[in-house]
């Protein structure tokens, strides 16, 4: 499942981060690596970006970036 399909308030485990570009690298550096648990906290007023929680902190990203993240419950 793609992270953007995970409902707000739900937690899931990251399976892979797709793509070989600067965005995927940045996401991984921020701790979004396979095996980590992420929770979707909310979406911003205009529907984008989204806020997720992982490793005890909050991270904001656009939906276009979150699409690279595959999760499973």
């Amino acid at each position, binding site marked *: 499942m793609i992270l953007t399909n995970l409902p707000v308030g739900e937690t899931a485990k990251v399976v892979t981060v797709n793509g070989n570009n600067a965005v995927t*690298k940045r996401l991984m550096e*921020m701790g979004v690596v396979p095996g980590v648990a992420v929770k979707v906290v909310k979406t911003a007023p205009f529907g984008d970006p989204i806020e997720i929680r992982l490793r005890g902190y909050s991270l904001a*990203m656009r939906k276009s970036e979150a699409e690279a993240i595959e999760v499973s419950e």
Partner: protein
Amino acid sequence: MKTSVVVESRESKPASLSTEKSAIRTPKSQIVIALAGNPNAGKTTLFNALTGLKQKVANYPGVTVERKEGTWKSGEQTARLIDLPGLYSLDVTSIDEQIAHDVLTGKVVNLQKPDAVIAVVDATNIERNLYLVTQLLEYKIPVVIALTMVDLAEKQSLEIDTAKLSELLEVPVIAVKAGQKQGIAELSEKTFEAAQNHSIPPLPWLSEAEFLGSEDDIHLSLSDNAAANRMIFARYNFISDVYQETVKPLNTTERGVSEKIDTVLTHKFFGLVILIGVLLLVFQTIFSWAELPMSLLETGFGALSEFFKAQLPAGILADLITDGIIAGVGGVLVFLPQILLLFLFISILEDTGYMSRAAFLLDKLMSKFGLHGKAFLPLMSSFACAIPGIMATRTIENPRDRLATILIAPFMSCSARLPVYTLMIATFFAGETVLGFISLGAVLMLAMYSLGIVTAIIVAFILKRTLLKSPPPPFVMELPPYRLPNLRTVFQNMFMRAWLFIKRAGTTILAISIILWTLSYFPRTETELFIPPGDNASVEEIQKAKVDFQQSEQLRNSYAGKLGHIIEPFIAPLGFDWKIGIALISSFAAREVLVSTLSIIYNVGKDANEENDTLKEAIKDAKKPDGSAVWTPLTALTLMVFFVLAMQCMSTVAIVRRETNSWAWTLFMVGYMTALAYFAAFLTYQGGKLLGF
């Protein structure tokens, strides 16, 4: 060179001259220590505690962009402490990361490779903070971990086994409370020890990813993204193991608080309402709170002027001091209270963590215009001053996005425009209200700020579709936990800004004031108003008419007057006369100079009895040769519109040149902004006249 000898001898008192010379010959003599850490990890507070040097602390990722350096003294030992920018990683994708990489590999001029690195690790966010530590260790420089925010971790009931952490990472780990100077002595001891012993621990995650390139330039050799990603994965696997063995999370109250605050502050609807409310409140408060101290300052400068008038013999010197220096410099210093308040609010918004939320709320909107959410902080800072704002754009990774942000940053109404807006509003729109309770002044002020913002958005939209076309930039940003701002830091920051403003008033504005006064005082004109015989005016009336005539003739024939007359045809369509022309020319050096210039122009040659007139009344009293008023509310509005859009700041021009490294872009900015300002002012004045104002 000579000055550096003097400085060194001051620092090491007993040393003789000969040892100082040898110290200069061998630069390797001093220990260099780098300070690295994630944004918001408390790095700046620690830097201040170690060096005593003051600098900005903020709660927004990436504010500390400049490389700061201080002298760290610990007992007998001294080190150069290099404050690296706040970083999440060292992969050389942003300017900050590049700077840090260069420091750590010894590529910076006049700076040897550091002997040790202090890695600042936020105890409430150990996992992500340790990522940078693993990268630092790969540079083969001894690392000492300073664990900050331990009190906050305690409040969250996070139990951290520092001994175990130190054992697993094989580096010293010291818990510090920089604010209370706790742990500093131990940190010093361990760091200086590490710098001398130079022992490097094994890096277990490296063997997990052995396919990597050469050792010494490990991060640059990772051109293959897949390899880089596997490397990141390997580091985090190691960190997860360390984390599980050292940290026992019991509950997460503090984050609970931040999350609760965010249910309101980043709420889909209320979040935006509150954002607008916060901005409105800030501006309203700046005006109402600053009113009293400003009128006190005004009275003070008036009294000072009176004092010099009474003490000094009448003549050039007395005129220079009162009409030139006090009128010019005092006219600008009066706005100090407003500037203090503006910086106070910006500091608080940054340090609490609210700025990041604003970027989160507005990113979608901003990306529609081709701007990055990260551009919010530089643009918001530009409301105080475009210079720190433009410097803060360094956190934007894509060069085109960065350039677009730089080119529109000066449209944000900076604190130097505030004196101009305030003077115009106080003179022409004071006491009037809209809907019975909102002051017209506040509405106009908001309108001016909005005009700048809207123009910036339109320009960004056009630039991003034409000259600076590029795919939408990524937005991956931490939302740091809300924290109470450290009041000492906030006030330090505020007073540092205020001091810079005062210094500017004492140098640039003083110089411009003296030049302008000279230009308007010379050449001296002696004319006598011809009074036809049989005129039945009283003696006083004749005397006053003569003084007025002498004054206006003096200014008209002065060098400044001639200059004003030359540009008058160009500014006449904007409703400006040659006196305003003089003020406009001088304000191209710095915007707030307009106020001092007007003070000088309307004070030159004035009778001592009229000295009590404030600038506001002088402006209202100014008459054209036909007897009609020079200034109408429409003129004031036009002038304000011109000031919103024109590029009138030498310091900004200089910083844009430095940051873009291009005269072409710098001149492009000056050109298009000034053209836009003229056009908008023209529309305002001519449109206003058509509407009957």
